[in-house]
């Protein structure tokens, strides 16, 4: 359920944006204007190592499921050293799933290429034993070009 590092060598974290709120702002033209499409933030090192350019479509999968988005290559993410190993983290905002004003248009053009699965398809079913907060912030994934 969690996956193992040999099959899922990247660490994914999820977070929110200021420009969207949960899943309903995808129906508001103002918010969609500010941030129109799902994206996956990766470090410059990882982009170089994997030959990924900004804007390339990626498929991110965990032991539970998969997610699609465009690569955002950024300096703000750096490789980590965990147990002496170099590990690339990636970051994905949560706000895309289901349908919004943008997805409806894209679906009409290309039924196969749009992600309608929420990001939390990827995160594991694990909770903090005290607060019961689910494990959104660190889970194993693999990244492929879509």
């Amino acid at each position: 359920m969690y996956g193992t590092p040999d099959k899922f060598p990247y660490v994914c974290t999820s977070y929110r944006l200021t420009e969207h709120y949960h899943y309903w702002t995808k129906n508001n033209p103002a918010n969609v204007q500010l941030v129109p499409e799902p994206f996956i933030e990766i470090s410059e090192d990882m982009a170089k190592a994997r030959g990924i350019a900004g804007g390339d479509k990626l498929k991110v999968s965990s032991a539970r499921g998969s997610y699609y988005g465009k690569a955002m290559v950024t300096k703000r993410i750096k490789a980590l050293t965990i147990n002496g190993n170099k590990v690339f983290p990636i970051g994905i905002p949560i706000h895309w799933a289901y349908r919004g004003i943008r997805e409806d248009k894209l679906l009409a053009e290309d039924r196969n290429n749009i992600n309608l699965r929420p990001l939390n398809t990827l995160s594991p079913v694990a909770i903090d034993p005290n607060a019961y907060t689910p494990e959104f912030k660190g889970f194993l994934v693999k990244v492929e070009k879509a």
Partner: protein
Amino acid sequence: MPNENLTVKAISGHPGALGSGAAPEASYEVCKLIDTTTCIGCKACEVACLEWNGYEFRETTFDNTYQTMPDTEWNYWNLIRFSEHENSDGTLSWLMRKDQCMHCADPGCLEACPADGAIVQYENGIVDFNEEHCIGCQYCVTGCPFNIPRLNPSTKKVFKCSLCSDRVGAGLEPACVKSCPTGCLHFGSKEDMKFEAEKRATQLRKNGFEHAGVYDPAGVGGTHVIYVLHDADDPEKYSGLPANPTVPIMVRFWKHPLKWLGNVAMLLGVAGVMTHYLRFGPKEVDAKEAKR
């Protein structure tokens, strides 16, 4: 738009005195303070500006950045510009700067504009474009050291941030300032905003940002939009904020010495030829010209 509630200080392309619209006493100068150190790049200000000015939301595309689009446009007056800057000490700064017209006290756009009344500067410091009189020549684009005015390609009129002159004229703060959730946008008198800005810069310098300071460039006489920057010694890294903006010297030359030299030369030219005629008259041709 020309605002009856605000008193006019200067008009582009206008010969002679200002006539009606100018008042004997100056009203206080307004200022918008943008504290880049507390901006979170939420872009509420971008949306508020569009909503207040009645511009439509548009379809944008992913461009490998958080920045909404590459540049401001005739119908998109302010834009948060994002830059990922690698500092010399190895740290990274993710800089976010709200970019829009700076409302210079010595506006290059107004200086360059040839159209009577197309650009108006009010006593309170706001520089406003007056669409009715704009001829679309884009001299203002040449005059502006911040590269702000933008042409509407179909109507051939130029637009930019108005510092919400209509709201300010009614005693309100600009729409962007009202919408800001962190309070990093402030609005008030230039004096008060400078005071707040310096206070904040001092606080930053005491807390690890040794080069923090206020951006209020003297080269354009000071501006009515000022920034607090983490690093006031290097404004360029905030997505190309000019370090020492001035009205281009060739624009000054064009609008002052060249214009007056030309005017005098043309007048002297006409006066000269008239005088020549009085003194020497026309050339005479004999009725029967003798052979040489």
